[in-house]
C-alpha cells in the first residue's frame, strides 16, 4: 500500500533494519567525497548494507574486494579477513579505500581512512587526514568538522 501505511504498520517488523533512503544519501555523500567517479564500486559482505546499496544508482555492489573502489567493513571477522588479504598482497599497487562502521577498527589499522559509527545514540563521522593523504584524497571543505589529523 502507500508510504504512510507502511510506516504505521510494517516499520516495526524488522527491528534493526536501516532506513534505506537516508542510509543511501549518507553513504553516497561519504563515498563520493572519497572517490571522484560517477559510479563507485563498493564491496561489503554485510547483508543489511547489501540490501540497501542494491537500490543505489550510483554505488555499484562489487563481489570482489580487490576490484572495488571502497571496502565497507562492518564486523570484526571481515575486518580480520581483509587485513590478512592486504598483508598477503602487499606488493600490489593501488588498493581499495577501507571505510568502517566501528570506531575500534580505526584504531586497529592505519589502512582505514574513516568511520561512520554510532556513539551514545548519535551517529558519528570521522576521517583521519594523514591516512587520506596516503591515498591522495582531499575532502571538500564542508568535512573539516569531521576530520582529525591522526588518532
Amino acid at each position, binding site marked *: *500500500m*502507500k*508510504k*504512510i*501505511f507502511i*510506516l*504505521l*504498520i*510494517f*516499520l*516495526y517488523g*524488522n*527491528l*534493526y*533494519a*536501516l*532506513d534505506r*533512503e*537516508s*542510509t543511501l*544519501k*549518507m553513504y*553516497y*555523500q561519504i563515498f*563520493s567525497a572519497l572517490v571522484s567517479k*560517477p559510479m563507485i564500486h563498493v564491496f561489503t559482505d554485510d547483508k543489511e548494507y547489501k540490501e540497501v546499496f542494491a537500490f543505489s544508482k*550510483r554505488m555499484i555492489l562489487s563481489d570482489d574486494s580487490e576490484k572495488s573502489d571502497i571496502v565497507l567493513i*562492518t*564486523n*570484526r*571477522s571481515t575486518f580480520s579477513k581483509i587485513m590478512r588479504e592486504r598483508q598477503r598482497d602487499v606488493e600490489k599497487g593501488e588498493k581499495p579505500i577501507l571505510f568502517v*562502521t*566501528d*570506531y*575500534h577498527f580505526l584504531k586497529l589499522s592505519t589502512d582505514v581512512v574513516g568511520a561512520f*559509527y*554510532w*556513539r*551514545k*545514540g*548519535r*551517529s558519528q*563521522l570521522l576521517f583521519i587526514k594523514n591516512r587520506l593523504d596516503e591515498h591522495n584524497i582531499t575532502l*571538500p571543505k*564542508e*568535512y573539516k*568538522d*569531521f576530520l582529525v589529523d591522526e588518532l
Partner: protein
Amino acid sequence: MGYFFGQKMIQKSLVFLWLLSSSTINAQNVGSILQEYNKKNDLSQKTIDENKGHLVLFTREKLEKMHAKTLKDVFKTAPVIYYHENRYGLPDPLTTGAFEPYRSNFIRLYVDGVEITQGWMGSGLMLYGDVNIDFVDHIEFYYAVPSFEAAVEPAYLTIFLYSKDPKRDSGGKLDLVGGSRGHNSQSISYGEQKEDFSYMVNFSHTNAKRETIDNGTSTSLSRDFERTQLFSYIKTEDQIFHLQVMKKNTDSLAGMSWDATPLVSQIDYLNIHMDYGIDLSEYWRAQFAYDWLKTDMLQADELPLIWSDALGANTFNGEYKNSTYTAELTYKETIGNSRVTAGIKGRYKELDSFTKDGQDALVSPFTNEKIATIFFQDQYALSDQELLTLGISYNHISRNGGIEDDSLLQLRLGYIYTSDHWSYKVYLYRAQFALEPLVRYLDLPAYQDVEPQTTIAVTQELAYSNENYRLRLMLLLMQDEDGLVKNNSEDDTKYFFTIVNYDYDFDLNNKMNLQLYYADYKNIGNVDELEDISGYLSFTNSYEDFDFYNGVVWHSNSLDWKNYFDLTSSVSWNIDEDLTLTLKGQNLLDKAKKTNLYRVDPVTPAILPPLQISPIDQRITLELEYLF
C-alpha cells in the same frame, strides 16, 4: 567514427550528470544529512508501534544525556503515573501508602517485547521498576490499553525497554559510579556482531545507600539495597534467547510493621527470567517465557505484623518460591488493505512453596492461576494517511482452591491519521482487570469472589511536528466500574487527563523538552475530587567536549497544593572517544515529591500521623565510563 563520437557524448553526458547531481547533494550539507540519518535510523524508529497507544519516548540520546542509570531516573519524569515506592521500599507507582502488599499490577513491563512478570507476587515492575538500564537502548511508555498483540494480561501503562544492538554498540563498556553516603555501582557490558548471530552481556552491581526515614524512634527506617544483575541475549535473524538474573537484598523500609517501627525489616529476592522467540515463517511467531522468583522475608516488630502469613506473630521468617510459564503463538498477515494479527496466549502462575522458619507452611488451597487468551486485531488502511484499528481479546482466568474463575473481555477501536506534519489518534476502549493472586492469597476469605474491574475510556492525541519542534496534546477520559479498590462513594471513579508536550531542537547539540500534565479525578480512594498537576522541563546541551543536562520535575495536587521540585543536573567531560567523566546531582533542592506512608497503632488501633517519604534521594555522583 560516428559510433565512437556517440560513445564519447554518452560518457561526457554521464560525467556532467554526475557533477550536477554531486553538486545538488552537496547543496544539502553533510550536517543536515547526518541529522536526517540520526532521526530515521534511531533504533526507537524501528520499535515504535503507533497502534500500541499514546507514547512517551526516551531515545538513546536522551537517556545518555540524562545519565539515567536506572528505570527510576526515567520513570520519575513520566506523566500520569509517577514513580513511587511502597511501604516495603519496592517500586509501586500506584501505591496508596496504606497496607496493601502490591498495587501496580496495572503497569506491565517488557524487555525486547517480552513481558517480565513476578507472576504470583505481581507485575515485573516490582523488581524491574528501578532496574539498572545500562543494557537499554531506548524506553517507550505507552499510556492506555496497549494493543493486544503485546499483552497477555490487561494494563493501563506498558513500559517497553529495548536492549542495545551490538551492531551499534560492539565491544565493551565499563561504568563506575560513586556517590553520596557511599552509594556505588559497577557495570560491565560486552556485545559482538558475528556473521550469523549477535550477542550481548551486561553484568551490574549496585550498592544503593539511600536516605533513611525518621520514624520517631532511635532506629530510622532503611531502604538500602544491594543488587546484582545479569542481562544477556543471543540472537540470529529469526530467533532470540534472553537470560536475566537479578539478586536484590533489601532493607524493606516499614515492612510488615503497622506503625512503621520494625525491629528487623529485610526482604531478599532472587529472580530468573528466560525467554525464547522464533519466527516460524513469514506469518507465524512463537514465544516462550519462564519467570522464577524466590522471596526471603525476615521481619520483626514489638507488636503483631501486618502480613497474614505471620499469623499474628511479631516475627516472620518466611520464604516463597513462585514460577510463571508463558507461551504465545501469533499470526500476522497483510491481506489487501488489512494487517491482520491473531493469536493465542497462555500463562500459568504457581506458588511453588512457602516455608516458615524452614518448615513447609503452605496450607492455602489457592496456589495456582491459569490464564488463556485469544485475540484478534485488524489494522485497516482507509487511505494512504488513515488507519482504522479494531481489536478484541478474551481472557479466561481459572484458579484452584475453589476460587471463582474470571472471564474478561477487552475491546479496542481506534482511528489514526498521519500526514507529513500532523497526526491524530483516537481510541475507544473497554478493558477488564481481575484481582491479582497475591492479594487474594493473603486474605482468601475476603477475596474469595471479586468482580473484575471494568474500565471504559476514550483517548485522543493531536500532534504537529516539523524539522525543529514537535507539539502534542493528549486527552484521556476514563471511568472505572466495579473498582477493585473500593471507594467510599457509591459513584464510579472517573479520570480526566491532559498532557501537553513541546520538544524543540535549537540545533543538533542543544535541545529542550517541556511536558505539562493536568488531571481531575472523581471519587478516587477516599477523596471526592482530586486535581493533580505536574511539569517536566529539561535542557540538553553540548559544547565542545562537554555535555550538560538540566531537568526539573514539578508536582502539586489539590490535597494541599504544596509544590515539589526535583532538580537533576549533570555535566560530562568527554575526555576522548572512549573515556567520559560525569558529575551528576539529583533532587538537588531536596524538594522532590513526597507521599504518605500510613501508620496505625495496632494496640488502640488509632491512626498515627503518616510519614512523608520521597522515593527520590538527594544524591551527588561521580561516574566514569570507559568504552573498549
